[in-house]
C-alpha cells in the first residue's frame, strides 16, 4: 500500500474525536479514555501497516473500541482500585458559570446514558452524536436496518425514563 502512514494519519484525524467520545462515555476518567483510545488506534495502525485490508474503517475502529472497553471493565473488576472521578468533561472555553452548567448537563446525560445497556448506548451515540444513518449503524452492528430503527426508538424511550427519574 502506498503511503500507509499518510492514509492512516487521515483516518486518525477523522475518527479520533468520535472514538475518544465513544470510549469516554463508557469509562470513568479522561486518563482511561485516552489510554483506551490510543490502544484502539495503535491496533488499527498495526493492522493497516501490514497492508491488511480494512473495508469499513469506522466499523473496524468501533469494533476494536468495544472490545477494548469490555477488556478494560473485566480487568477493572478483577483488580478494583479507588480512583478520582472529578474530571473536566469539556474544554474550558465558555465563562465559568456557563461552563459549570454545561458540565452538569453533560454529566447528567452521560450518567443516564451509562445506565442503558451497551447496544442502546451505542445506537444513540452513533445516531445523534456522530450522525450515522440507520443503514451505517446496521452495518457496524451487523444487524438489519429495521432492528436498528426499533433499537433507537427503545433506547430513546429508556433514556427519557432515566432522565425523568
Amino acid at each position, binding site marked *: 500500500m502506498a503511503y500507509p502512514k499518510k492514509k492512516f494519519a487521515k483516518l486518525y*484525524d477523522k475518527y479520533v474525536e468520535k472514538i475518544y467520545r465513544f470510549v469516554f462515555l463508557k469509562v470513568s476518567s479522561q486518563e482511561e*479514555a485516552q489510554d483506551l483510545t490510543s490502544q484502539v488506534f495503535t491496533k488499527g495502525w498495526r493492522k493497516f501497516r501490514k497492508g491488511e485490508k480494512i473495508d469499513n474503517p469506522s466499523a473496524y475502529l468501533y469494533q476494536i473500541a468495544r472490545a477494548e472497553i469490555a477488556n478494560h471493565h473485566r480487568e477493572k473488576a478483577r483488580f478494583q482500585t479507588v480512583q478520582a472521578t472529578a474530571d473536566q468533561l469539556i474544554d474550558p472555553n465558555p465563562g465559568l458559570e456557563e461552563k459549570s452548567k454545561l458540565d452538569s448537563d453533560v454529566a447528567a446525560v452521560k450518567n443516564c446514558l451509562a445506565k442503558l445497556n451497551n447496544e442502546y448506548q451505542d445506537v444513540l451515540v452513533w445516531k445523534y452524536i456522530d450522525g450515522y444513518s440507520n443503514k451505517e449503524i446496521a452495518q457496524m452492528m451487523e444487524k438489519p436496518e429495521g432492528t436498528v430503527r426499533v433499537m433507537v426508538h427503545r433506547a430513546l424511550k429508556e433514556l427519557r425514563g432515566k432522565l425523568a427519574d
Partner: protein
Amino acid sequence: MEERQLIKKIKTLKQIKPNKDWVLFTKKEILEEGKGEQVMSWLFTPFNRPALVVRPLIAGVLILAGVFVYLYLGALTPQLAQLPFVSDKRAETEMMKASLGEIQVSLAEISLSLNNLKNSRNPSQALAVTGVVKATAKGGERVISGVKDSLPKGVYASLIDGFDEVYEKSDNLGEELLEFCINSLKQISLSEEDQVRLRKAEEDYNEIIIMNLYNKYFNEN
C-alpha cells in the same frame, strides 16, 4: 420530555472532546511505532497504557537519578574543586539547594505514581517496575547518606522520610501485585509440575510475609 428536547440533550455530549495536545502527541507516537524505539519500549509503555502511570513514574526516577549523580559529584570535592566548573562555591550551594528541592518533588511524584500503578493491566510487569523504583531509591539514599554532613539541618531527615514512603509503598504494592498474580494463576489450569511450582512460590511468599511481620514486631518493641 419531547423527543426533540431529548435529542438536544443527547447532542450536548458532542462537547466532549479530547485534549488537542494529547491528540497530536498520540498521533505522533502511534505513527512512529516500530521506528527503532523498541529497546526501551517496555520501560515507557510496559502496560500499553502510556497516559496513565508510567511516564511520570519513570520521569521521576530519571530526575532523581540525575540529581543523585550531581550530588555524588559534588561530594567528591577534593578532586573536583580544582575544576573551574565547580570552583564557585556560591553557585554550587544554590545548585545544591535547587537539587534538593527537585529530589523532594521527585519523591512525592514517585510516591503518587505508585498509587496509580495498581491500575496496570499487566501486574507482573508492574511488579518488576516496583523493583526498579525501589532499587533506584536505595541507590539515591546511599548517595544522600554520603553527603549527609553537607546538607542543611532537617533536610536529610525529610529526604529520608520521602525515601521511607517510597519503600513502604513499593513493598505494599509489590505484595498486593504478587498476591494478585498467585491468585490469577490459581484460576487457570496448570500442569502438575507448574502446580507444584506455584505451591512452592506461595509457601515461600507466605514465609517471607511472616518473617517481615516478625522482624517488624521485634524492631518496634
